[in-house]
């Protein structure tokens, strides 16, 4: 089912949480709402769910007006940030809850509910834990119970609020890959909120970058990463180095010489020993090996500004840099924005 959001506004007291937001989530896709805290992404998710009512605008599910429909009737599955598992119920009772509160006519038989619950627990790989209480589970297990509970009512839309936010780093990575595989299996239209760009880039089909209640850019992970629409998106999705464009820098020369700023990712900076046309002269200040990469902090001569280059281990070994020596930094790929727009 597709979701259409048309000029939605939301105000909390004097705080504008959403400012004229328009978005279409295509059917069957896994979409990430990505942004810093306070960007309005969770509010947007709660409005889609019907947990929050917009001050203005409309929500449509498959073209059908849904704005005034109660959460109960929207058939959404919502996975809460802190899971919101019912702590006095076992895993099985938690997952079965949505089925047992159905009106008697629609409610499946006890046996059917049991089968459905166990099928779901199999899907989320928690079969042996049906009789446990939430407090007896690890964070990752709770998350999967919350997911199974949301899926039990066969939602048309699955909404997840910071689904991996409360987990430690290793479990996070495992669980998000698992979620990706699960989505490929069940193909329900899904939207999740995250502030972690890596998570969004790895899991989502489509990323919606949000900031201060507005949508900055919508696109595939490759699009938002490689062709960011503005400095905010560039900055939020990865490392940034600012090259103040000067006359000697190739590309920049033709445009606005002194005023504009070039944005370069750390791994797009080439460090060379020989001067070339587009390179700037810099001094090596600090060398730090980080996992498979080596980070080199460079002080650009004459500007007092530092840039950080990320080299491969091999590349760094070949250069054999020393702190204090002079090198030349050349941006392989640079983006410039005038106002908020990319050139």
């Amino acid at each position: 089912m597709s979701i259409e959001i048309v000029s939605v506004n939301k105000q909390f007291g004097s705080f504008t949480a959403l400012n004229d937001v328009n978005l279409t989530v295509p059917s069957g896709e896994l979409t990430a709402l990505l942004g810093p805290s306070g960007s309005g992404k969770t509010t947007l998710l709660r409005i889609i769910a019907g947990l929050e009512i917009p001050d203005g605008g409309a929500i449509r599910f498959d073209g059908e007006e849904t704005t005034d429909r109660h959460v109960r009737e929207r058939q959404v599955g919502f996975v809460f940030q802190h899971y919101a598992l019912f702590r006095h119920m076992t895993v099985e009772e938690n997952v079965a809850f949505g089925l047992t509160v159905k009106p008697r006519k629609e409610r499946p038989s006890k046996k059917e509910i049991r089968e459905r619950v166990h099928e779901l627990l199999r899907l989320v790989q928690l079969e042996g834990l049906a009789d446990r209480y939430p407090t007896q589970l690890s964070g990752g297990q709770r998350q999967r119970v919350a997911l199974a509970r949301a899926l039990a009512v066969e939602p048309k839309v699955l909404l997840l609020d910071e689904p991996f936010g409360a987990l430690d780093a290793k479990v996070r990575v495992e669980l998000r890959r698992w979620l990706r595989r699960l989505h490929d299996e069940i193909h329900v239209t899904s939207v999740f909120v995250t502030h972690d760009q890596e998570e969004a880039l790895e899991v989502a089909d489509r990323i919606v970058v949000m900031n201060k209640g507005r949508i900055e850019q919508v696109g595939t992970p490759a699009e938002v990463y490689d062709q960011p629409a503005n400095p905010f998106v560039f900055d939020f999705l990865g490392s940034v180095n600012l090259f103040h464009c000067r006359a000697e820098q190739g590309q920049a020369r033709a445009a606005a010489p002194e005023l504009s700023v070039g944005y370069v990712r750390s791994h797009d900076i080439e460090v060379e020993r020989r001067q070339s046309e587009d390179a700037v002269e810099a001094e090596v200040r600090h060398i730090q090996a980080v996992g498979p990469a080596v980070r080199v902090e460079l002080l650009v001569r004459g500007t007092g500004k530092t840039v950080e280059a990320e080299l491969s281990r091999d590349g760094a070994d070949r250069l054999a840099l020393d702190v204090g020596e002079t090198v030349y930094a050349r941006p392989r790929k640079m983006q410039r924005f005038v106002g908020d727009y990319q050139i």
Partner: protein
Amino acid sequence: MATRPITRNTVIPGFTPTLGYTVFYLSLIVLLPLSALVVKTASLTWGEFFATVTAPRVVASYKVTFGAALAAAGVNALFGLLVAWVLVRYRLPGKRFIDALVDFPFALPTAVAGITLSSVYAANGWLGQYLEPRGIKVAFTPVGIFVAMTFIGLPFVVRTVQPVLEELEQEVEEAAACLGANRWQTFRRVLLPELLPALLTGFALAFARGVGEYGSIIFIAGNMPMVSEITPLLIITKLEQYDYAGATAIATVMLLFSFLMLLTVNLLQKWSRRHAA
């Protein structure tokens, strides 16, 4: 949280009926009857009101009531802190039992506390028989009022200080020790300031409770006008003489005092919350 959403339009049902019922029931049971007191007082002229609440017998009752309550709250602040400290910090057998028993004065009906204390401190009572020969008369004197107020106020300080003491971070004390402070200095300069808001809150609660207390006191006080007659008893005496206006005037003074204490406690708690954050 910097931006606390005002979610009036939440999906959770029942806001209007529950808030409506709350306000209705509160008005019916608490606010309306209390306003009867204010209206009745308003029927007195200023002169009448002033003359009633400053009559010598009434003023004497204030002195006894507030004086004894202040002393009892002071003793409770000191010993309550000590009891809380011992219960939180030390291992001793039967601690769970002692801890539970601290609430005994809360749970024991005041009339029972009153007759028990007065029999214990009477001349032939368990404690009175040792105190009276030494010239310490407790029962039927203002000292008895103080004893009863100490009993009923005992749990307040312990129960406000105890949780704060439990939550204190170990690191703070260790840091003080590392910086060369001895135990007493650590207590005086590091722990006591942390405990102060809770201690004052407990003191204020015990004080307010003592001032309003009736049941546990009248049996042990002797109730001699000008000497050991507490203000709440004076209200009842006036009521029994069908002096409704007089009773109401004195009750208004006590009610104002209660509001003042309520405000103080609220401010203290706000302060201690800021302290904790």
